[in-house]
């Protein structure tokens, strides 16, 4: 209590100086957390984007499909998977089966390599971005659409076509023969990235199976778990129940580049915290040194009165701690408020859309901060703040009372 009372009054002896360092700490915390939230938002957006773009959180394939994604490596009888998934997956988990094959789309004027995806419209909508919400013109597929196809806006523009027009899809079937079929554009979708709009076309799953002569075969099963569920654990459980003719992968295994980026992201965040702290740290040391040197005689008096060196050390550290805690309090409040405000509406990066797409970022970033980020920032500032305050505190503790009291 004595330390706290003295510390509180001492830090307000020079309100201007305390205010300056207080603002520096608030700004430091605010910048650290806000930037971390923005970067976390970018990372989350990239993950969300990747998962929504036909990856899912877990995928099941036939053995060898990932190395050679051809129709011959399809899952021939998915019916044996259904009871296992129904048994293992939690109640709110969603999954869908797809046929996915490389194809050539063409019309009278243009042709282009695309990924032809055969989907079950009802279940697909719950697992990936493609669904009624993504349709900007026409309608989403339904089970009656035997010749219906959904194209992305960018591909429609590239092909100079429109809703209701025909488009021919050509690919290789399981017999290694060319399979070709005309479809009518029933819907046009919009995605966050133009590449997605250009690369994917969607038809009904049974039509894809017919075209490729797959019978009941599928290329993959993609699934999404309820929020907070351990993806790797579930993948391991599914794997343990399936025969060796299946492969089970999490999105981290499927998206190597993104996984590597996320690992690098955590390290770069720590470097970012350190960089901001170093700038802030000089301010803290400088302020505390000034506060100590202008009170040399007072420290001499305290020692003469019987205060031990270690108590003087605590006294100065207590002053640093108070400034740090106050700055951290307001800094955290402002940061969380900033993150909350921007998290509600998101930050529209439309002006950076091309560049953002290049690195797989979504157009709208939702800054997001986790408790672990907040904890790391606060521990970094408080912990290192106290460590660097040891220098002025030790200076104060080591003054000889006689020299200190004769200091002018």
């Amino acid at each position: 209590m004595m330390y706290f009372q003295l510390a509180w009054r001492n830090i307000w002896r020079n309100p201007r100086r305390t205010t300056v360092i207080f603002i520096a700490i608030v700004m430091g915390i605010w910048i650290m957390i806000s930037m971390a939230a923005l970067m976390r938002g970018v990372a989350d957006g990239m993950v969300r984007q990747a998962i929504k773009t036909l990856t899912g959180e877990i995928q099941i394939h036939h053995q060898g499909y990932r190395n050679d994604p051809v129709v011959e490596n399809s899952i021939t009888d998915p019916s044996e998977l259904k009871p296992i998934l129904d048994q293992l997956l939690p109640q709110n988990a969603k999954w869908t089966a797809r046929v996915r094959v490389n194809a050539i789309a063409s019309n009278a004027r243009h042709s282009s390599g695309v990924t032809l995806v055969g989907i079950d419209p009802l279940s697909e909508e719950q697992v990936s971005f493609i669904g009624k919400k993504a349709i900007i013109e026409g309608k989403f597929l339904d089970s009656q659409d035997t010749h219906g196809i959904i194209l992305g806006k960018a591909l429609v523009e590239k092909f100079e076509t429109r809703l209701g027009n025909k488009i021919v899809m050509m690919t290789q079937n399981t017999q290694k023969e060319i399979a070709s079929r005309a479809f009518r554009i029933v819907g046009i979708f919009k995605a966050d990235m133009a590449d997605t709009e250009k690369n994917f076309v969607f038809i009904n799953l049974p039509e894809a199976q017919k075209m490729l002569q797959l019978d009941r075969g599928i290329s993959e099963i993609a699934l999404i778990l309820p929020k907070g569920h351990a993806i790797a654990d579930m993948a391991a459980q599914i794997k343990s129940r399936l025969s060796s003719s299946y492969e089970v992968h999490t999105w981290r295994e499927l998206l190597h580049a993104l996984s590597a980026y996320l690992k690098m992201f955590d390290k770069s965040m720590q470097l970012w915290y350190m960089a901001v702290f170093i700038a802030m740290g000089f301010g803290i040391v400088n302020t505390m040194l000034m506060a100590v040197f202008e009170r040399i005689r007072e420290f001499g008096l305290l020692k003469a009165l019987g205060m031990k060196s270690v108590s003087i050390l605590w006294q100065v550290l207590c002053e640093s701690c108070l400034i740090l805690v106050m700055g951290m309090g307001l800094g955290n409040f402002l940061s969380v408020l900033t993150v909350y405000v921007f998290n509600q509406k998101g930050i529209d990066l439309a002006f950076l859309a091309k560049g953002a797409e290049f690195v797989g970022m979504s157009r709208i970033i939702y800054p997001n901060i986790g408790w672990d980020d907040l904890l790391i920032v606060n521990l970094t500032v408080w912990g290192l703040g106290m460590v660097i305050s040891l220098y002025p505190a030790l200076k104060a503790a080591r003054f000889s009372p006689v020299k200190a009291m004769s200091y002018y």
Partner: protein
Amino acid sequence: MALIQITDINKTYTQGKIQIHALKGVTISIHSGGFVALAGPSGSGKTTLLNIIGGLDTVDSGTIIVDGHEYQNMRSSQLANLRLYKIGFVFQAYNLIPVLSALENVEFVMQLQGVSSKERRSRAMKILDEVGLAEMYHRRPHELSGGQQQRVAVARAIVSNPSLVLADEPTANLDSETGKGLLMLMKEMNEKKNVTFVFSTHDPMVMNYASRKILLRDGVVVDDV
């Protein structure tokens, strides 16, 4: 046994390349209850001797025993404890902690001693009343005159019933009337509470209040009456 027993102490300071012999073979014995003045001109070694008695400074040779504690064998933390419990200080200037009120300044030493808040408040108020500052207990040092500040310092020095109070030129910054008042207060506390006072001065008026005068010149005791 004497409260303070100083035997053949020597103290040399180095200022740049010059060695200053502040004390040369000083031997003094002061008994409990004394009101002793260390007199002498500037540079005679009064403050150095007070600092050494208070355990704030060390000697090159010789022995100091205060209240049965021989300093040579004590660590700095033990000396701090001795100052905290046995010795009160009144300095010439900059005596009080500026961010604390008069009452809190008086309480401070007891706070370091771990006295309960209730007890230290009542003791501090009582002593402030005795030094005539009960009405000003809430004032910060800058709201008090020089004389009032010195009275608070005396109150703080004696509030925890030390064996010894050391005062380094306590009246040097005060006008003669205020200085006289402070000396009378110190004398009163010396008689009433039987606290030993050792103070330095070069003012003949101040020396007249002392029951014993030790005259120092160039670091040597030249008279002791």
